[in-house]
C-alpha cells in the first residue's frame, strides 16, 4: 500500500494521495459508444445509447430547434444567472406539457417544477429530496429491469434500491400478474418508480386497464409514486397519449414526483434540458417544497444552464413552432415504428423460427431483443453491432440501409 504517514520532503514527492483509487469500470451504456468509435468495420452499427438518428444514421437537429435558435439570436439577451429553479417560462410549460394545460394541478398551483440538468439531474434532485425529507422507508422500488443509471443515482443520494417484477422474459412482454403481486407486498410509504411510457430498457408498457389496476394497488399500499418520463412523444408519437398514465395517476389522487427530459423528444441531448415536479396538497406546501429544492440545488451547480431551456420554452410557447415540433416528434416515432416492422420482417425473411412479435409490440426507442449476453457478445465481435449486454438495442440507430444486416446478424447468433 501507499505510505500515508507524513514524512520527509522526498516521501511527499514520491507518494501520491491517490494510490488507493481503483480504476472505475467503463459506463455500461456510454462505454458502448466508446467501443463503437474504435471499431473500423464499415458496417458497424451503434445500437447503444438512446440518441435518435435519421434514416441516414445521422444525428437529427429538429427544424423547430433551429428556428427557435434563430429567434433567440435576434433577441440578443444577456447572460445573467437564472434563479436556482431555472427559467420560469420553461418550468411552467414543462409542467403543462406533462399535465395538460387544463389540469386542476396547474390551475390551483399545487405543484412546483424546477428546471434541471436533463433527466439525470432531475432524478438526482428528486432522490436527494427524498433522502432528506421522505419520512417513509429508505427503499425505492424500481421495475425489473430499469435504466441502468437509476440505481447508482438513488444510491449516491443515500436511498436503498429494491425491485418489483416487470419484464417477462418468456413473453418478452409485461409481467402484469407478477408486478401486481410484488407491488402488493411493498411496505407502506415506500417510493415506487414508474416509467411513464416507452419503458427503458424493455420498451414494454402497461396498457391503460393495467395502469388502472397498478394505480389501485399503489394507492392501497400508500406508496409514493415517482414517474420517470424521458420519452414523452416518442412512444406513440402523441404527446398526450404518452402522458396518459401520469395524468391518470394525478386524477386518482396520487401526489406524484415527476422527472422529465427533453433530450430525446426535442433532440436537445447536450443542452441538458429537464424538469423535476412535485405535486403537492396545496400551493402553500408547494412553496415549502420549492424552498427546500433550492437549498439542495445550490450546492450542486447553483443554477441551471440557460441555452437549452430557452430553446425548449420558445418552442413550447410559440404556436407554429409547437405545431412543427409535434409533427417532428411524430415523424421520429413513426420512423422507429417502421424500423421495428422492417426488423421483424427481416428476421422472418432470414428464416428465423423464433417469435419476434415483441419487436413490434414493444414501444419507444428501445427493443429488448431477448438476446443473451453470449449472443450479444457474438453480435458485437462478429458483426460489429454494438449494444448493451442486457440485449437492449436502440431502434433509433437502425436505418432502412442497415436493418437487413442487423436481421442477418441477429438471426446468425440466435439460430
Amino acid at each position, binding site marked *: 500500500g501507499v505510505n500515508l504517514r507524513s514524512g520527509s520532503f522526498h516521501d511527499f514527492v514520491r507518494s501520491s494521495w491517490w494510490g488507493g483509487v481503483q480504476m472505475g469500470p467503463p459506463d455500461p451504456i456510454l462505454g458502448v459508444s466508446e467501443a463503437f468509435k474504435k471499431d473500423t468495420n464499415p458496417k458497424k452499427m451503434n445500437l447503444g445509447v438512446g440518441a435518435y438518428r435519421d434514416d441516414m444514421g445521422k444525428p437529427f437537429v429538429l427544424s423547430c430547434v433551429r428556428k427557435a435558435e434563430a429567434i433567440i439570436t435576434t433577441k440578443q439577451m444577456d447572460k445573467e444567472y437564472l434563479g436556482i429553479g431555472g427559467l420560469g417560462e420553461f418550468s411552467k410549460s414543462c409542467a403543462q406539457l406533462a399535465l395538460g394545460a387544463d389540469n386542476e394541478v396547474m390551475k390551483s398551483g399545487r405543484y412546483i417544477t424546477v428546471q434541471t*440538468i436533463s433527466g439525470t439531474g432531475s432524478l438526482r434532485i428528486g432522490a436527494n429530496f427524498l433522502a432528506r425529507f421522505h419520512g417513509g422507508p429508505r427503499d425505492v422500488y424500481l421495475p425489473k429491469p430499469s435504466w441502468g443509471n437509476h440505481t447508482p443515482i438513488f444510491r449516491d443520494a443515500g436511498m436503498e434500491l429494491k425491485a418489483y417484477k416487470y419484464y417477462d422474459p418468456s413473453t418478452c412482454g409485461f409481467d402484469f400478474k407478477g408486478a401486481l403481486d410484488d407491488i402488493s407486498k411493498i411496505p407502506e410509504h415506500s417510493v415506487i418508480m414508474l416509467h411513464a411510457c416507452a419503458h427503458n430498457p424493455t420498451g414494454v408498457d402497461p396498457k391503460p386497464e393495467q395502469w388502472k389496476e397498478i394505480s389501485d394497488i399503489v394507492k392501497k399500499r400508500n406508496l409514493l409514486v415517482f414517474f420517470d418520463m424521458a420519452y414523452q412523444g416518442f412512444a406513440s408519437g402523441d404527446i398526450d397519449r404518452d402522458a396518459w398514465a401520469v395524468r391518470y395517476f394525478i386524477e386518482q389522487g396520487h401526489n406524484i414526483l415527476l422527472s422529465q427530459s427533453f433530450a430525446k423528444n426535442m433532440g436537445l*441531448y*447536450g443542452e*441538458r434540458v429537464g424538469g423535476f415536479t412535485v405535486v403537492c396538497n396545496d400551493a402553500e406546501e408547494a412553496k415549502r417544497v420549492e424552498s427546500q429544492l433550492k437549498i439542495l440545488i*445550490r450546492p450542486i451547480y447553483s443554477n441551471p444552464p440557460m441555452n437549452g431551456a430557452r430553446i425548449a420554452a420558445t418552442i413550447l410557447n410559440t404556436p407554429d413552432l409547437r405545431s412543427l415540433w409535434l409533427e417532428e416528434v411524430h415523424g421520429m416515432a413513426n420512423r422507429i415504428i417502421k424500423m421495428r416492422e422492417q426488423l421483424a420482417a427481416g428476421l422472418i425473411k432470414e428464416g428465423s423460427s423464433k417469435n419476434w412479435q415483441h419487436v413490434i409490440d414493444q414501444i419507444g426507442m428501445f427493443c429488448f431483443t431477448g438476446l443473451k449476453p453470449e449472443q450479444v457478445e457474438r453480435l458485437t465481435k462478429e458483426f460489429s453491432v454494438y449494444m448493451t449486454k442486457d440485449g437492449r438495442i436502440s431502434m433509433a440507430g437502425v436505418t432502412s440501409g442497415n436493418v437487413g444486416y442487423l436481421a442477418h446478424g441477429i438471426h446468425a447468433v440466435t439460430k
Partner: protein
Amino acid sequence: MSVFSEVPQAPPVAVFKLSADFREDSHPQKVNLGVGAYRTDDCQPWVLPVVKKVERLIVEDGSLNHEYLPILGLPEFRSASSKVALGDDSAAIKDNRVGGVQALGGTGALRIGAEFLRRWYNGVNNTATPIYVSAPTWENHNSVFADAGFKDIRPYHYWDAAKRGLDLDGLLDDLEKAPERSVFVLHACAHNPTGTDPTPEEWKKISEIMKRRSLFVFFDSAYQGFASGDLDKDAWAIRYFVSEGFELFVAQSFSKNFGLYNERVGNLTVVAQDGENLSRILSQMEKIVRTTWSNPPSQGARIVSKTLNSPELFAEWKGNVKTMAERVLLMRDQLKAKLQAQGTPGTWDHITQQIGMFSFTGLNPKQVEYMIKEKHVYLMASGRINMCGLTTKNIDYVAQSIHDAVTKVQ
C-alpha cells in the same frame, strides 16, 4: 395526509433574496451592490463582444448538432481550460499528469471535487476528514462540502477586521495546527468576499507549511483575469503550488471572466503525480458525474473552447477581460477618493488594496441595514459590496450613503 406536510420552509438564499428585494424596490436612486456579476458604467449586464462573435459562428455552423458531450465534457474545452490556469509552458501538462472535468460553473467543479475527495481521499469514504474554509468565505463553500458528505468543516483565520487585511499569523497557525491531510479551500485570487489576497511571499509561507504537514490544496479560481486584468498574474499562486510538487484540484469558473453566468461553464483541473494516477482519478470522476448530471451542457463550453483555442479570439478575450478589470479598478480609486474627500471616519485604503469584484467595506450589520432600508443601497449583511454595481453616475450617492451610515449608525 401528504408525505411532505412536515417539510419546513427554508430560508431563501441570501444573495438571491437581496436581488429580489432590489428588483421590487421602486426608489429612483436604488443601487444593487449585491450579487457578483459585472455591470457596465450604465449599470447594464455586458455580453462580451468576443462571446457575441463566437455565438454567431456557432449558430451559423450547420455542422454542429446538439448531441451528448462525453461524460467528462468537451475535450478541447477541458484542455484549454487547464492550460489557462496552469500556463502555456506548464511542465505538469507536458508530463501528461493534468486532466479536467467540465462542470456546471465553479459550483459544479467544487461539488465534483468534493464528492471525489469524500469517496477517495484520506482513506475510502472518510467523511471525517476536516475541510477548512476561510473565515469568511463564499457562503456556498460550506454547503458544497457538507452536502458532499463531510462532517467536519472548519474555518481558518483569514480576515482581520481590526486591521482590515489578511490575518497571516492566524492563517499560518491554523495550518500548523490542522490535522495532517486536512483539506484547505484556497481562493486563487480576488478572495470572495474580502478581496484580500496573500502576497507571493505569503503564499510561499502557506505552501511550505502545507507541504510539510501534508495538507490538501483545493483552489477555487472564479476570477482569473478579473483580479489584476492579467491572466498569468492572477494564476500565480496556482502555478507556484504546482511547481512545488503538490497534487491539487482547481475549481475554475468562466462565469465572470467570460460573462457566461447562465451557461454554467466550469472546469475541475486535476493535477496528479503522474498519468497513471490521473487516469484512475478521471475514471472515478466519471462515475460521480454520471449520477449527478450524466454529461455537461455544451453551449458554454463550445464558446469558451473556440475562444481559448484561437489565437485571435484569445487575444480579443483578454482585451475584454482587461476592460472589465480596469473599470473595477477605476471604481475602487474613485470610491476611496470620495470617501477621503468627504472626511468619512475610518481609513479607506483597503478599498484600493483589495482586489477583484468585491470589497469588504467594514460596515457592520446595523449600518448595512441602514444602507438598504434608508438609502436603498443593497449590499450583503457582511458588508461586502460588488464594485461592479458602482458607476460614475451612482458613486457620489453611494459614497454619501456610506458616510451617513458610518456617522449615524453605530
